[in-house]
């Protein structure tokens, strides 16, 4: 049933379309006119002529560009030429100055050479004169006054005499100035562990003293009035050291005025104002020389003079170099006052001081200027 209904509906739809088309044709058949137009008109410019015109314009532009470039290149060339001429003149001027400086330098070098020769001659004369002087003063050692012994009443110690050079030697030029420390110019040279150098005690930074025992209590006597100088090569195991350290005996202070007065009387400081230690040699301890740490430990051997009486003494010391390149010397030794004929202080026979005391040193020594080269 449904199938038949759909077939009739399809037939009805087709008939409706055919009928509509026939009606439309009837309505519009008098209003529609079909015209077949001809091809596009021949009017407009000739493309070949157009291309020819374009080529002509481009040719004119190229000609103008060529002209402009030619002009600019000519100007650039002229400018470069001018500059090259100026540079050439400058180079010639510099060459003339350089030649003049070279001549001046050569003249100065010749003058320096002449000065060096004159210095060498003067050095030779000086060496000869020193040699003659040493020979003329060659007297028994006992009569040679010690160079750095200020005490007139003390026994005379032979001063080391530096041997004069046997042959004339060229005099070294004066020490060069090293520009360097905060705009100041300082002499060259400095501390060397492995070279013989001279050192001077710095009293402001040094002390010597003694520790004593008595019936009532123990006490120390201390002074900073210490002076002296020594020469040493810290790296030399042979220990060829020499020098002297002295202190003002009257300035030893124990902290008690009455005891200081007694001490001065017993040390007879009026007649023997100084206590001195003359260095004769140094004997390093086993492994006592430490090059890396720059320390030295061992025994300084020499002569101690107290109250005018001299005795051989071995003073164990340790030496190190502080950041200010000063030698810091510390050491102590026991000694008996009676060995130096110093009366042992005693009060009423009840308060007695022991005969044996510990003598100690705590010194700072500065490199002698001019010895650090």
């Amino acid at each position, binding site marked *: 049933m449904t199938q038949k209904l759909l077939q009739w509906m399809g037939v009805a739809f087709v008939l409706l379309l055919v009928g509509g088309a026939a009606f439309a044709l009837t309505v519009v058949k008098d209003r529609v006119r079909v015209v077949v137009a001809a091809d596009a008109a021949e009017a407009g410019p000739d493309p070949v002529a157009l291309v020819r015109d374009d080529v002509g314009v481009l040719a004119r532009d190229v000609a103008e560009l060529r002209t402009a470039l030619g002009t600019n290149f000519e100007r650039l060339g002229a400018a470069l030429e001018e500059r090259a001429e100026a540079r050439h003149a400058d180079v010639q001027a510099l060459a003339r100055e350089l030649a003049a400086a070279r001549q001046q330098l050569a003249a100065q070098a010749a003058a320096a050479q002449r000065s060096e020769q004159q210095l060498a001659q003067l050095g030779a004369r000086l060496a000869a004169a020193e040699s003659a002087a040493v020979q003329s003063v060659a007297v028994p050692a006992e009569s040679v006054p010690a160079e750095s012994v200020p005490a007139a009443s003390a026994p005379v110690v032979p001063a080391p005499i530096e041997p004069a050079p046997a042959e004339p030697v060229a005099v070294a030029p004066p020490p060069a100035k090293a520009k360097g420390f905060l705009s*100041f110019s300082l002499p060259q040279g400095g501390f060397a562990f492995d070279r013989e150098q001279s050192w001077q005690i710095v009293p402001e930074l040094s002390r010597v003293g003694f520790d004593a025992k008595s019936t009532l*209590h123990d006490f120390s006597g201390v002074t900073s009035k210490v002076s002296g100088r020594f020469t040493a090569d810290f790296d030399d195991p042979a220990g060829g050291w020499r020098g002297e350290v002295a202190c003002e005996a009257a300035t030893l202070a124990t902290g008690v005025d009455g005891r200081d007065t007694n001490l001065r009387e017993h040390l007879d400081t009026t007649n023997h104002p100084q206590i001195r230690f003359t260095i004769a040699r140094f004997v390093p301890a086993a492994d006592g020389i430490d090059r890396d740490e720059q320390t030295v430990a061992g025994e300084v051997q020499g002569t101690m003079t107290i109250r005018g009486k001299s005795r051989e003494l071995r003073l164990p010391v340790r030496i190190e170099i502080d950041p200010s*390149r000063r030698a810091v010397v510390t050491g102590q030794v026991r000694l008996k006052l009676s060995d130096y004929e110093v009366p042992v202080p005693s009060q009423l026979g009840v308060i007695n001081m022991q005969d044996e005391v510990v003598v100690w040193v705590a010194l700072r020594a*500065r490199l002698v*200027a001019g010895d650090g080269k």
Partner: protein
Amino acid sequence: MKRRLRACVLVATALGCSGCIASNVVATGDRMVQQPLEQLPFAPAPGLQLDGLYESVAITGDAAVSLRRIWYLFRADGSYTAAALVEGERGASFQTLDGSWASTAAGLSLDGAEPVPLEQAEQHLRLSAPTGVVVLRRSAAQ
């Protein structure tokens, strides 16, 4: 009996006195003259205004071999004058300088030279040059 008693009293008195009087032996560690400057707490001081008079209180390093004292007078206008007591073969002599100073982040520059590290503690300066270190204390003209 009385003699023994007196002896005992004397001994007791002596022992008592010795107990009352303190020992004044200098300790081994105190024998050396101390230099308390090492205790100063220095800290970097970039761009510090230095104007004033300073004198050295410690010099270390190779420069200390020949340099004894230094004085600097830094002025606010960037100029300075200075004097150094330098030990030479003929004894100590003064060197004097005049120039310009500048305190920058890198330290203190004198006369346009490479700046050196500058540190400050209370009333003190520390300048570390390649050949030595100097500690300066602020001072006053007399």
